[in-house]
Each structure stands twice: as C-alpha cells, then as structure tokens.
C-alpha cells in the first residue's frame, strides 16, 4: 500500500520547518483548537514560529474563521443553528451565560430543524443521523447507495456498483472520459451551472503543473445539505469520482474541502480515503489507471465565503478565506496558482452516473427541502421536475397551514410566490421568472412566519459572513442590515420609501461592484421580498 | 547565507552556513574544492579569461569539505550543497560586508571569493558578480574621488605617471608620486612620532578604532589635531581646532556614490545651524589661508573638475545626473550609458577586446590574531544593529523603539553555563581591556560566540576589547574576532547565603 495522502500536514510539535509551510496552517490551527478548545495567544505564536510564518499573519488568518475561539472555551461544544430555517422552526441564539453553547450559522441539518451539533475537540459526539432520504432506492440514481450500503465498507460499495465507473474510465482513457463528460451536458451543481466538460478540457489543456482536483464540500448555503448526505452515506463515491477526474485532466493530487460543521462527513471520508489507499484506489497507481493520485481532506473553519472557489483555494493555501479576482480562472491558475478542476460534491457524483458501464443514466438533480413540509429531506428528481412536484414528494405543507412563499436557492436565492411553484427546476426556467435553482435549497415558508423577520435574518447572515475584503460588501451588508433593522422595528429613517431607496442603492452597488458572489447576491433574496412580496409596503 | 550568527537575513535563506569567525578562506577553498570535484567549473571561461587556475586548483585540492569542517564548523554537506547551488545557478552574485573585510586577512578573504566567481564564470554578466555592500553612504564615492592613500580620482594609481600628469594639468600643482599612509599606518606613525599633526573630517577614531585606549592616547599626544565634524565628538574633544561642518546629506549640495557605483545628488533641505559651514567651503577657505586657490566653493564647478581628471566620470554632467536621478560609473560618454555591471570584457570573443585575463589568487588561511584560550574561551564578534549607525553620533539623537542600548549577546548555552540571566551586568574581558554590559540572550548565537556593537561607546566602550591586528593590504583592523571571557559581577540570581547586592 502507498500513502493515500499527498503530504503530511498536521505537523507534530517539534523543530521548526525548514521552509515556511503556509499550507499547513489551517490544519495546525485545528489541531491546537481541538486539543484546547480555544486558541491561546501562545498557541498561535507557537504555530507561527513552527511554520515560519509571521505571527500577525497567523492571527489574521485564524481570526477570519468563526469556528475558532480566542478566549477560553470548553472543548465540548454545543452549536445551536441560528440559520433562518432553524429560527423559523423556533431556534433561539444561546445567551452568553452558557459557555459551552454557541450560535452557529446554518448547520446543514435543516431537515432536523431546529438543529444542534454536539462536538468534543471538533469530533461529533452523537452517532450519525440516518440519511434523510425518504424516496425508495429504486427511484434514485446519484443517491442509490445512500442508506443502503455500509459507508465504511469498500466491499459493500463495490457490491452496489461502486468502482464500475472507474473501470469504465480505465477502458476509455482520459480523452474519452472528458468527451463523455462534455457530451453529457453536465453543469456545475454548486450554483453557477457552468458546463463541466469545458472545465475538464481546459484543465487538461492548461500548461504547467502539478494540477489539482478540488471537491468543494464547503456546503454553506443556508438550507442546503445534499453534499453532507452524500459524504456521510456514500463517501467512496466522492473518492472514485475524484480519481476519475484526476485521471481525465492529468492531476495527481485532490483536495476535499469540507465545512467544519460536518464532522461525521469528515470522519467517514477520511476512513474511505484510508480504505481506498489500502485497496490501491489511491496511491502511486491509483485504481490501476497507471498514474498516481492522492487525496487530502481539508476542514473548513466556519466561513461561508470559502464556498466560493477562489476563497476556498486561499483557505487551503493558508491565507485568509478571501476571494480572488477572476480572471485568471481556476482552470488556468487555481489552487497554489496551478491549473485546477474544482467541482461541487454533487457535480462529482454525477461523473459516476455518466460513466456507468451500461451507459449514462438520466440526469437528475438533488433538492434539500426544509421548512413547512410534512417530510423534510433530500430529494432526487429528474431534470425538469417542477417545484410543485418536489413539494408534493415532501408531503406538501402540513395540514392547516397555507403556503406563503418558497425560498429557492438559499440565502442568495429568491422568494417565490405560491402561484410560481409550477416552475420547472432548471437553470433556464427559473431564470425566466427571475429566480435561480442555486444550490438546490428549497425552504418552504407558511403563513405563520413573518417574512420580514426572515429577510432581516438573511441580511444578518450576509453581514456576518462578509469576509471584509471589498467595500461594497463589507460596508454594504452593514448598511443593508441597519435599514432592515429599522424597518422591522418600525423606526424608519425618514420615510419607508427613502429606506427602501437606500436598500436599492446599496443592493445595486453590491450586485454590480462586489468581488465575489457573496456580495453580488447579498441583496438578491431581499430585493425579491421587497419587490415581489412588498414586505415593507413599498414595492416600487 | 554565510554568517556565524543566525541573523534575520538567515531566516530567509535556503542554506545557512554557520561559519566560525575568521574561517572564510577555508570555507571558500572548500567550496572551490567541491566545484572542481563535481566537475562544475566553467571550463571555457577559465581557459579564455583567467590565469593561474592550475596553481589555484592545486592549492584547494587539499581543502575537502570534511577537512574544512574542522576549521569552519560548517558541516561538509552544507558546503557541498552551497557549492553546487552557486555553480549551477544561471546567475549568481557574492555579496559581502564587513564580516569579510574586518579581518587581518580581509583582502585575502575577498580574493578567495573572487576565485569562486572566476571558477564559475559568475562575473562580467548581468545579474552575476561580486559586490561589497558598503556600510556608509559614500564609502564608494570617497574612494572614487581619490580619498585613498594610493589613488587619484577615478581609481587612477598615484604611481601612474600618465594619470599624475593628467591631474597635475588640471590642478596646476605637482602630485607626490608615492602612496600615502592608510589609517592604520597613520596611527603607527603617531606611535613612532613621524606623524605629529592630523586633520580629521567626519570620522570619530577615538571611538571607532580598534583598541580604543591606544587610539585615544595617540590622538591626545599629537602636536596639532584639527577635527571637522557636525558634532563635538570624542575625537573633537581632543582637538586643538574644531571646524563645525554642515550635514552633507541635508544641509549641503553635492553627490554621493552608493554600493552599486551610482552617483546621486544630495541637496540642502534645511538651513544649517549658525556658524556651521559646508565641508567644501571649509576646505577652500583652509586652502586659501595656505595660499592655494581651489576655485569657487561650488559643488558643480568642483564636479566638472573631477570629470576632467577622472575618465570614469567624464560623461556625468550635473544636469544629466539630475535628469536620470543617478548614474552608475563607468560613464565616459556624455550620450551613452555603459552596462550596469563591470568586467563584461572577459566574455569578449576577440582576445584584444578581452584584455588582461583575470588572475586566480593563491591565498593562505591566517587564523584570527586573537586566539581563543582557556582564559579567553569565547569568540566576540562585533557588528551593527538595524536602527543605529557606527558610533551613534547621529542615530542616538532619534528615539528608536528598537533600541535597547549596548548588551553583550550570549548564546543560550553559554548563558546557562555561566549562570547569567538576561539583563544581568557582566564584565567582558579581553587581552586588552574590559567593559561591563548587560547580558542579552540571543538564540541566533551558537555556543562559544558572543556579539556586541560599537554604537554606544559612551556607555560601553566595546573597542577597548578589540584587537589592533591589521590587514597589511587594507589597513583594516580585525574588529570581527576578539577572544574574551565573561565574568560575573553580581551574586547568582536566587543564590542562597550570598551577600545581598548593594
């Protein structure tokens, strides 16, 4: 067996490294934080000295992540989700008098709302929850193994069709694999819906190396939990898809960047990587493809913006999770400035269905359904299924309630009226009504919920998650929340119309002039609430 | 990076070679040995552009990295790595400061480095070469102007009749055909009574000379001492006549020349204090009293005179320097600029253009003059700190957050052996004298190595310790290698039953 991971990064305490190891910073911060429950100044300085980084820089990087505490805090921690899905379900932010209980942005457990997560030294305390996938396995494609196989067993994975796509890829060769992905019409499932095949061809053609494959599992869009379910219940699928991607584009190293709020997913993925390494699926001759491929898991530290691909690269590299200007695009200059193929977990999972030896399976899409439905959970439906059909699958709004709105696409998404739910959930159809599928989050709001409060919650979320790099987002999200706060509390500065004009002015600048999608979409849902729902009585 | 201390610069280095003080020639020879043994000599360059290779190669044949390790303290593997990195780099420079030159073998140390550059052809091309990093803003310019005992302006030899004739024609006065005395020879002449009057401009030898006790005795014993300075320095306090001068860099107009031979303009920005006069004006006035007319005390006029006597500077009109912001010599043409590097001729195809080949130098190692011994077991080396300048005459007048005064810096191991704590005042004793200074522990120092500066001579006269062992070729003293011992003054911290400190 060869080592399934590229390089050891969680350096033990010991002599300083010979060259600065910025890329080892985030794992080192986690190591220290897990051990103590918080990051003492001495611990931060020791990490800086050991990795030969500036102490101010290490402090600057660490303090950009919400997961890290800088005052004493117990190792054993209860995170209370204060995402809007859970607040609507009755969650309340913990008070300052409960030292081991902290508020958390959306935990990605919206089907359990109000959700909590108990950890000790970063590891989950409770057993992994059963997969929230109500549909029977026969009706699923991407999710066909979820809840069916033992996620710790490579043998079980194989017994349920696992590694068949890898074998098929070996037969096809890299160019034909890329052609198959292109021919499938697969588009990115993280929200931007960029054609995957174009990325694969671009990375394969890019000059320079080494090249990287990055799985974006920093699933932080409120209301979204599809990647968590896949990682927890079918982790070998992610490994297999990455090996194939590396083979097809000429990359030898893969990173999976998983958000800190998914400790069970991280544990199961780590186990899968070890098992895959032992079986030769990773290592010097990964999966018998004749080329090396290794995978390293990187754990995020509480930053929504790190779901943006360039911020994610910065985070892996040991910089603050701040997005970079594009161009250059990741296919040319991504992780460590090298050509990089970056995909969301769901997108990667599709690679296995495209390369099914019996022919490509029909394209499907995952939807995380939460809120006012009878059966919240993860649903897999054929492309083109309408929102109404998805809501029906989830059992519809509970008896006695009335549908008020659906927030489609998470905090960066759009509020839809009940009369709009006939829309097919495709990029084109949703765009036609001014909405977006986004990450596939479907948050259902009934008539008992005050929409203005939801809107204010969204504004607070963006203000808290802005990295602070560019002016429109850094200050704009503050001004947006200030206005909404005044409006929700009935204390407008001047007329309501003036306040709404402030929102529009700030929102337009954020959309037009922010560096990344966070700022560009921070006004999106709020604009819809104002314009489509007239939440503040001024819809002009 | 070669340095006895792990300095801040060493933190950036791919390779840090922790050399024992004074072992520069063994290290250079070992690197040369490795370059030759590894077959990395630039054969074509050596054959076409150098002489003396065979003798040189024979000399370094014995200096294996292993043998050198015993002298230098640098592990043989590091020497090999450095040699290969230097020899295989497309471009490589050797830059040095006083750590090379402030030894009694200072010139030979430099020649040993020149050998390495010749061996690899790392000279005469853009991005490659040899560069002494000057410690003062006009060390280069002073030499360029002829303020050396054996040189006329433009580095022309005093002994060269053609050069003398050219200068005499412009100056209208004869130039003595023999070399003058360097600083060390002047002090030696004071000792013998051959030199009895001295005119010091902008130097503070009472504090900056090695073996300062001797230097002060000799200065005080002169028949007549004139000091021209910004301040009443310790040297000026000994003077018969003090000529108050303006600060050349901000109260006068003129030029200075930096380490890369770039001539740049200094300009008066503030009015000088009442009574202070420009250096040039003072010299012209003194000459006038002596009956010589040096012309107007105008820097541009004086500069134009230089351009007539120094071919290196002929093309550098005052207006051109202003327009370009600075010009590197040589600059013989008023219209063209020469390449920014020297010795490019060595690469010429035509032997006539190539000119005189560059000689390899066979230099022998001379260990430091002040040997370590059981009585004096610690090697003290001296140097500068970032925020201070030489004897501190100028820099002590600004409030630096980095400054902590003079200390004797010890390695953690030596401090532990001696049982001394940071801040504790100890006595540092050499064969010439002793000083007292507080201890500072520097993890960048290896056991057996101590460090002090000369910035705070009024408080801690470090140069009482240093040795007046002089390089006969340069006249520079061996400030970098003094043998000392550290003596405790107070009772050990926390000692029981000791006498309480007064």
């Amino acid at each position, binding site marked *: 067996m060869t080592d399934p991971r590229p390089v050891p990064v969680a350096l033990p305490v010991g002599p300083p490294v010979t060259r600065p190891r910025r890329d080892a910073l985030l794992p080192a911060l986690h190591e220290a934080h897990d051990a103590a429950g918080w990051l003492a100044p001495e611990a931060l300085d020791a990490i800086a000295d050991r990795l030969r980084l500036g102490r101010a820089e290490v402090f600057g990087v660490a303090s950009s992540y919400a997961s890290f505490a800088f005052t004493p805090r117990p190792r054993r921690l209860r995170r209370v989700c204060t995402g809007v899905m859970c607040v609507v379900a009755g969650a309340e932010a913990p008070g300052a008098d409960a030292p081991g209980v902290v508020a958390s942005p959306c935990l990605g457990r919206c089907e359990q709302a109000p959700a909590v997560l108990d950890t000790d030294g970063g590891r989950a305390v409770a057993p992994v929850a059963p997969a929230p996938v109500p549909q029977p396995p026969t009706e699923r494609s991407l999710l066909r193994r979820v809840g069916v196989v033992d996620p710790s067993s490579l043998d079980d994975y194989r017994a349920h069709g696992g590694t068949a796509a890898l074998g098929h890829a070996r037969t096809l060769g890299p160019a034909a694999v890329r052609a198959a992905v292109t021919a499938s019409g697969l588009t990115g499932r993280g929200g931007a819906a960029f054609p995957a095949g174009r990325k694969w061809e671009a990375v394969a053609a890019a000059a320079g190396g080494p090249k990287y494959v990055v799985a974006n599992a920093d699933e932080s869009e409120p209301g979204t939990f599809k990647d968590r379910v896949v990682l927890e219940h079918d982790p070998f699928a992610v490994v297999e898809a990455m090996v194939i991607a590396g083979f097809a584009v000429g990359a030898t190293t893969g990173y999976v960047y998983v958000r800190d709020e998914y400790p069970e997913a991280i544990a199961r993925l780590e186990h899968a990587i070890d098992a895959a390494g032992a079986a030769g699926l990773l290592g010097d001759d990964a999966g018998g493809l004749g080329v090396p491929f290794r995978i390293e898991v990187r754990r995020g530290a509480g930053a929504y913006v790190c779901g943006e691909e360039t911020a994610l690269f910065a985070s892996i590299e040991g910089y603050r999770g701040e997005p970079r200007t594009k*161009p250059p695009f990741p296919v040319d200059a991504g992780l460590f400035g090298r050509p990089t193929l970056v995909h969301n977990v769901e997108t990667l999972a599709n690679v296995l269905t495209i390369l099914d030896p019996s022919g490509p399976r029909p394209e499907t899409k995952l939807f995380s359904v939460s809120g006012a439905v009878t059966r919240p959970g993860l649903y897999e439906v054929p492309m083109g299924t309408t929102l109404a059909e998805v809501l029906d699958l989830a059992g519809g709004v509970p008896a006695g309630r009335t549908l008020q709105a659906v927030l489609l696409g998470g905090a960066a998404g759009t509020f839809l009226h009940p009369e709009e739910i006939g829309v097919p959930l495709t990029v084109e159809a949703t765009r036609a009504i001014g909405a977006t599928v986004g990450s596939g989050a479907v948050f259902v709001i009934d008539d008992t919920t005050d929409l203005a409060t939801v809107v204010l919650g969204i504004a607070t979320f963006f203000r808290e998650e802005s990295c602070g790099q560019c*002016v429109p987002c850094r*200050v704009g999200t503050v001004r947006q929340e200030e206005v909404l706060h005044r409006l929700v509390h009935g204390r407008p500065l001047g007329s309501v119309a003036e306040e709404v004009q*402030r929102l529009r002015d700030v929102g337009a600048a954020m959309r037009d002039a*922010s560096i990344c999608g966070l700022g560009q979409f921070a006004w999106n849902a709020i604009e819809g609430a104002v314009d489509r729902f007239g939440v503040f009585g001024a819809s002009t | 990076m070669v340095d006895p201390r792990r300095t801040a610069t060493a933190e950036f280095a791919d390779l840090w070679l922790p050399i024992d003080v004074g072992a520069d020639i063994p290290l250079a020879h070992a690197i040369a040995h490795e370059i030759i043994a590894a077959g990395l000599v630039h054969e074509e360059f050596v054959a076409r552009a150098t002489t003396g290779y065979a003798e040189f190669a024979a000399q370094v044949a014995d200096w294996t990295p292993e043998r050198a390790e015993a002298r230098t303290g640098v592990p043989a593997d590091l020497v090999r790595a450095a040699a290969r990195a230097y020899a295989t780099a497309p471009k490589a420079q050797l830059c040095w400061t006083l750590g090379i030159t402030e030894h009694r073998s200072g010139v030979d140390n430099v020649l040993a480095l020149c050998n390495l550059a010749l061996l690899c052809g790392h000279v005469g091309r853009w991005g490659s070469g040899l560069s002494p990093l000057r410690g003062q803003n006009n060390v280069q310019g002073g030499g360029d102007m002829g303020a050396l005992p054996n040189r006329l302006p433009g580095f022309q030899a005093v002994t060269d009749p053609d050069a003398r004739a050219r200068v005499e024609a412009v100056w209208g006065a004869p130039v003595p055909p023999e070399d003058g005395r360097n600083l060390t020879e002047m002090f030696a002449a004071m000792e013998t009574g051959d030199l009895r009057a001295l005119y010091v401009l902008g130097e503070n030898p009472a504090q900056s000379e090695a073996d300062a006790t001797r230097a002060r005795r000799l200065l005080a014993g002169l028949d007549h001492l004139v000091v021209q300075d910004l301040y009443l320095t310790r040297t000026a306090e000994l003077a018969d006549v003090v000529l108050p001068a303006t600060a050349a860099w901000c109260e006068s107009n003129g030029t200075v020349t930096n380490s890369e031979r770039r001539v740049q303009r200094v300009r008066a920005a503030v009015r000088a*204090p009442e009574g202070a006069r420009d250096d040039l004006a003072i010299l012209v006035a003194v000459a006038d009293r002596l009956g010589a007319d040096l012309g107007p005390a105008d820097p541009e006029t004086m500069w134009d005179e230089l351009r007539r006597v120094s071919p290196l500077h002929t093309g550098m009109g005052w207006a051109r320097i202003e327009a370009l912001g600075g010009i590197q010599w040589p600059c013989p043409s008023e219209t063209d600029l020469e390449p920014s590097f020297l010795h490019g001729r060595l690469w010429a195809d035509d032997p006539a253009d190539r000119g005189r080949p560059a000689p390899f130098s066979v230099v022998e190692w001379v260990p430091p003059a002040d040997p370590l011994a059981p009585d004096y077991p610690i090697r003290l080396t001296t140097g500068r700190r970032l925020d201070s300048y030489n004897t501190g005459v100028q820099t002590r007048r600004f409030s630096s957050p980095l400054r902590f005064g003079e200390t004797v810096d010890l390695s953690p191991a030596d401090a532990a052996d001696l049982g001394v704590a940071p801040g504790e005042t100890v006595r540092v004793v050499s064969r010439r004298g002793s000083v007292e200074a507080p201890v500072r522990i520097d993890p960048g120092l290896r056991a057996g190595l101590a460090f002090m500066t000369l910035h705070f001579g009024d408080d801690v006269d470090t140069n009482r310790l240093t040795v007046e062992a002089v390089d006969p070729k340069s006249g520079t003293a061996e400030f970098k290698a003094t043998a000392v011992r550290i003596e405790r003054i107070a009772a050990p911290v926390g000692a029981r039953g000791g006498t309480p400190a007064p």
Partner: protein
Amino acid sequence: MSGHEVAVTVDGRPVVVPEGATVLDACTAAGIDTPTLCFGDTVAARNVCRICVVDVAGSRALVPSCSRPAEPGMEIATDTPRVRHARRMVLELLGSSVDLSLTDHVEEWNARYGADPDRFGPDAATVAQPVKVDNDCFVRDYSRCILCYQCTDACGEQWQHTFAIAIAGRGFDATVSTEHGVGLPDSACVYCGNCIEVCPTDALMFRTEFDLRTMGTWASERQTRTDTICAFCGVGCTLTLHVQHGVGDDDGDRIVKVTSPHSSSVTAGNLCIKGRFGAGHVHP
C-alpha cells in the same frame, strides 16, 4: 512579447495601449480621470475599494479597472449610470464609516458622483476608534483606514517581509492588526515606515506630523520637499525631506516627515528606520 499593442475602446474612442497594460491605463490613455483609492503604484493591485470599476461589454458585473488587463477589442465604458452609481455608493459607504478628511480628492469625487455619505443617518456604524500611539516614530489611526491592504502588502511579502501587521477579523470588523493586537513595540515591526509610504488616507502618520497637527502647528503651506540621499548606509535611498520652515514661535527649519519617491530605481519608495525616522540629529 514586449512591443505588442492592444487596441480597445474607451467610451467609444479607440485607444491603443501596450500589452500588459490595465484597463485603468487604457482609461488614462484616453484622457479619462478614474478615481482610485486602494490602488498603489508600488504594490500589486488588490482591487478591493471598487471605486475604479468600469463597464466592460460582455461582463455581468462591473470590472475593477486597476487590475484587469486590457484585452484586444475590449469595449470599456466609464460613465454609464451603473458605473456612476457604484462609484457614488463606494464613496457613500466609505464616507459614512471611515474618516476620509485627510484623503486626497474625496470632496471632488463626492461632488462629481453626487455622493452624500450622511444619508445613512447619525447611527450608521463606523470604524471610529482611538488613535494608537505606542511609539515615537508613527501613529496608527484606524478610524481613517479603508482596508486597502497596501500597508500589509508592503510590510509582508511584497516588500519588507516583516509581517508585523496583517488583516485580522472579518467583515466590517476586519482591521489591520499585529498579532493579538499587541502594540508595535511588542510586535515584529522594524519601523521601516514603508506602510506609511503607501497609506492613501493618512491613517498611518509620522509622530511628528501627528503631534504638530494635535498642537495646531502643522502648516503645510510653509513646507517644502527636497530630494536627497540617505546618509546611513551604502544603499543610496532617495529621501524626500518634508521641511516645515517655522513651527509655532520657532522660526527654525524642521524635518517633519520623510518619504521616498516611488519611482526610485534603488528602492522604489522603501526605506529603513534610519532613513525614515533618523533625521532628527540635524535639529538642536
């Protein structure tokens, strides 16, 4: 590759710029004055203030002109309603949260773009905080900081490699900080002052200037600037001496600030503590 040229249009006018030139360069070549705040001439463009944005045909969002390379055929618009609005909002957002009173051009730009920073009311959050005065060389007034990143880049990997300061915290709470916020004397700072050199808002200020301003004796109309060469080593850095001729009742000359020309081929505006702060010895 040098010598190639790129043809673009700026507001409909054809402009040719050298390959590698930015959109900002193209705008300048077209004679258009583009406001910039975070853009500095000695550090890589960070494009974080977003005041220099322009409309580029085919691009959904506005484009930061300071960092985007000009590409053949680019159609650049600098005066569209979107561009004017974004610039106005950047001025309002910064003006309502940061003290820009010492920042060049802000009044002029506010007028040009119709910006009214007061429109967010008196309770709008700001970055106001006490001035950090912890050494005799320079002070840090982060009430004036727009987070342009130039000081951290100059301190860090683009020039000084000291890494005494970095951006810490995030969002609106992000600030320039030493480790754990310790004072400069306890940090890695070497007082090169290269951060002051690049600061566009005077958030970083010589202690002399700060003290004179505090005492009301700062008089820029009585100041001259003279270039000379530093006396303290052989590098040969150019110093621009800012001399005030008369301070209060004293009619003597006083060096109140030292900068360095960014165009200097020797050190591109960078100095060390001696050149930046060591001039005091010429004063009695």
